[in-house]
């Protein structure tokens, strides 16, 4: 009997033990004496990664480009905040570990309501409907301050409820472990879904929805089911964000939040198992660390997104796995010979471009590079940048 290679979405190829050990190290970050700031940043990465994993199911698997995913994330976050503040739930002894389940239910409920009108269509119309629904829900938030706390949002305290494992999760290190484990579980669920029959049908709808219908399977039903799953996972991720921030405000459902998850997923790699994690890490570092050095961080982030769309459709994880694959074939020396010149040229061009931008725009503010370089530096750097770009082009030709 013939052996079929069965579908395995999200094969890492890095060796399961190594991946497991790495993840365990990440989860146990607090044991290594990470300060509160790094823990909070870490939690942010986990929350965003969980959110991005839910989005990857839609965009990466089924090609559903949603501009309103924050609806599910935000409603999950609000449900979690209300649950944390609810005396009735506290009296019933709801442990804080179960809060993400509340968010999951809220996300699922929202997906039942909004999923139907949006998943009837695919492609560009789907993108437009989700955009409309996203704007709709965001606008509603300010209209019903009774439910959503108005612009101030809803404050809560993650230590308000007791826990099963720890007495409470007020301290950052305990909260970190809770959030990391939940995020891992959510990511695993998303990857699991990709490997189920639903995941297979998701890829089929992306490839050719019309053909799927002629096979007897309604593509809009597949999209709807995916939306339910993705909505539930996003809702749980939203609940994690409530546990982290202890406040939920309108920004949780905003277009910016919807855009963030799209950016993370694309930059990280829309199809790779580690794409969302890497995307979340990149966004968090740029938003929280790079933003301390330059006002232009959003510009760099947008530029990075565009470059990814243009030149690396498989995102950063795509680049990494390409490099690893080539490295195995070529060895260190071969890699250096082959990629040394283009990488050096790209790095140089990038650095010079950043320098030019910093000097040109922050002259009168005197921040960043503008502090050290004189005004004419910008002109010099931009010329250098141009030269580096030409060099890059030449070395890329050499590659091809």
């Amino acid at each position, binding site marked *: 009997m013939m052996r079929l290679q069965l579908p395995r979405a999200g094969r890492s190829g890095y060796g399961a033990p190594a991946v497991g050990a790495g993840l365990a190290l990440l989860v146990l970050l607090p044991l290594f004496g990470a300060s509160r700031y790094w823990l909070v940043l870490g939690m942010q990465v986990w929350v965003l990664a969980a959110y991005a994993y839910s989005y990857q199911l839609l965009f990466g698997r089924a090609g559903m480009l949603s501009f309103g995913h924050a609806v599910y994330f935000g409603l999950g976050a609000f449900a979690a905040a209300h649950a944390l503040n609810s005396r009735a739930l506290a009296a019933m002894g709801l442990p804080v570990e179960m809060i993400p389940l509340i968010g999951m239910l809220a996300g699922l409920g929202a997906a039942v309501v909004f999923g139907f009108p949006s998943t009837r269509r695919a492609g560009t119309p789907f993108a437009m409907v989700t955009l409309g629904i996203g704007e709709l829900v965001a606008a509603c938030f300010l209209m019903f301050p009774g439910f959503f706390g108005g612009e101030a949002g809803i404050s809560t305290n993650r230590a308000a409820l007791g826990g099963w494992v720890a007495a409470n999760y007020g301290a950052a290190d305990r909260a970190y472990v809770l959030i990391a484990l939940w995020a891992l579980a959510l990511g695993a669920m998303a990857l699991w879904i990709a490997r189920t029959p639903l*995941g297979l*049908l998701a890829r089929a709808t992306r490839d050719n929805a019309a053909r*799927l219908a002629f*096979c007897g399977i309604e593509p809009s039903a597949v999209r709807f089911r995916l939306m339910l799953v993705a909505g539930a996972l996003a809702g749980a991720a939203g609940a994690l964000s409530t546990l982290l921030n202890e406040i939920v405000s309108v920004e949780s459902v905003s277009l910016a939040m919807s855009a963030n998850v799209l950016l993370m997923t694309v930059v990280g790699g829309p199809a790779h198992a580690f794409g969302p994690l890497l995307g979340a890490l990149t966004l968090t570092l740029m938003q929280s660390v790079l933003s301390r050095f330059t006002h232009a961080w959003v510009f760099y982030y947008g530029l990075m997104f565009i470059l990814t769309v243009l030149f690396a459709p498989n995102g950063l994880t795509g680049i990494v796995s390409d490099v690893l694959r080539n490295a195995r074939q070529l060895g260190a020396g071969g890699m250096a010979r082959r990629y040394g010149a283009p990488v050096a040229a790209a790095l140089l061009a990038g650095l010079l471009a950043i320098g030019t931008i910093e000097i040109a725009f922050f002259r009168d503010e005197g921040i960043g590079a503008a502090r050290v370089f004189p005004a004419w530096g910008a002109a010099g750097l931009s010329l250098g940048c141009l030269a580096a770009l030409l060099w890059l082009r030449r070395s890329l030709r050499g590659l091809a």
Partner: protein
Amino acid sequence: MSASILSLEGVRLSFGHADIIRGASFSIREGEIHALIGPNGAGKSTLFHLISGRLAPVSGHIRFRGRDIAGARPSLIARLGLSRSFQQTSAFPSLTVAENLAIAVMGATGERGSILRTSAAMPAVWARVEALLGKIGLARFADRIVANLAYSEQRILEIGLACAGDPALILLDEPTAGMSRAETEEMVPVLRAIARGRTLVLVEHDMEVVFRIADTVTVLVHGEVLVSGPPEAIRSDPRVRQAYLGQSPEAAHG
């Protein structure tokens, strides 16, 4: 004479003022191989779209096993046991050959995308896929991504997809389009094989293939049925000659 499995009664389709199908009526008997021929623009593919549910007729009835399916959704029609292939190869290009067939099988077996087991854990589906792979002769390409298949293999896969769900009736849209003589020769037995135990309707430009395998031939001109009958009668019918005479030889032979 066996019972009719599919019958069209006065099926009409128009876009704006242009009539595409002007009241087509004919019926297809269970178990036969029925060929639809006609010059370019006669509305053959459009008729397929109407039968398979991609388009809805303005008026008229399409009865499949006694049930009116005019205007029903494609997925419903497919579940009723009416399947089709496409003129352009239009499978799922980023999936493997086996996965393509699995999806078609899932559609027929009523699998709606469980999330509680992996897709590997569908023994019935994969067993059927393996059988199909053997039948259409693509077993060695099982794990090949469809986009990387050669053209003729993609055409064969297209037919495999159409019969994966063991449908009662298959619509094949130009199964030999774009194939070399030799490839077409290979296709003829495949067509005979899949026709075993079911009804086959095909649109085909290659007259040689049509007259070799068809039990009945229906000639469509300008959205109307010109004549319908056994191949020998069609071959000698002067109206058919007339209809084809104005056409270039390519149109007559595909």
